[in-house]
């Protein structure tokens, strides 16, 4: 960009506009049975996790902003906010651009296997939407207190 004033043009200056482009996984942890967001003792087969993400730009650098609202569409349903949830107190990212999707998973009173849930994630930035990730989760619960969840890449958790 350059500025022209009084017939004179300044040197040009390049600006880089960060656009939400992807989500990086910072950590994945199991939510304990009975804890906020965890499976209950009555439905203790399966697993609920807390997945912490960081929003990245086109260059893979973190976007440090609290003005992004993570949204999801599960199995092609209409879009809804990921937060507030068991960890997030608002619909928006933290000031460092991170957020917790918690809980994520399936619980049951009996065993189940290979439940597939496809979660598309986008960022709402003042009404502009940016697709950042798609998780295809496979979730199982083999016995009481045990379960697994995997997206086949960077989210793999068992208990």
């Amino acid at each position, binding site marked *: 960009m350059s500025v022209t004033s009084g017939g004179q043009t300044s040197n040009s200056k390049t600006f880089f506009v960060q656009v939400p482009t992807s989500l990086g996984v910072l950590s994945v942890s199991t939510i304990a049975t009975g804890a906020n967001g965890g499976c209950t003792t009555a439905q203790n087969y399966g697993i609920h996790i807390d997945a912490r993400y960081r929003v990245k730009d086109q260059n893979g650098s973190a976007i440090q902003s609290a003005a992004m609202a993570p949204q999801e569409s599960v199995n092609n349903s209409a879009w*809804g*906010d990921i937060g507030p949830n068991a960890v997030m107190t608002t619909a928006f990212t933290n000031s460092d651009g991170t957020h917790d999707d918690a809980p994520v998973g399936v619980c*049951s009173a009996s065993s189940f296997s290979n439940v597939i849930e496809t979660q598309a994630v986008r960022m709402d930035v003042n009404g502009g939407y940016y697709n950042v990730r798609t998780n295809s989760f496979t979730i199982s619960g083999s016995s009481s207190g045990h379960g697994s969840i995997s997206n086949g890449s960077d989210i793999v958790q068992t208990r």
Partner: protein
Amino acid sequence: MKTIAVASVIALCSVIAVSQRKLAEDDPQWRQQTVVRAFHEVSDGLSTSWSEKYLARLGDSAAPEIMSYVRSRPLSNHDTLTPLSLVRMSFANPNLIRHASNRTPTNSLALLDYLDKHTEDSNTKSKIKSVSDGLRSQFSATRSNGKN
């Protein structure tokens, strides 16, 4: 001074944009989709984190959608237990309910009354009463806390 004024206007616009975000919970189609999805999952003995979270945000506004779905199909005793679970899930965490008005279980109690009138099974009736009593006591506790 001019810079401060412009920055203030931008900040104000951002705040207005944030506060005017359209919530999925206000979309009747989204509510219906959420309830139908949860109904099938619970009928299958599953509880997904997504249905739990979405219903917990709806509170009392889930009840008309549950009622609508229940009325669209013949009810078995098993089917009666499923809407009961959905009502429980809708009030699982009152702090998550998006609109304060949906913390009052008016429609949910009407739904429970409807379910009670449409079942003869004493075990099911007992469970309906338990959920109904739970909602009433939860609501009166919330109201007392609000007054304090």
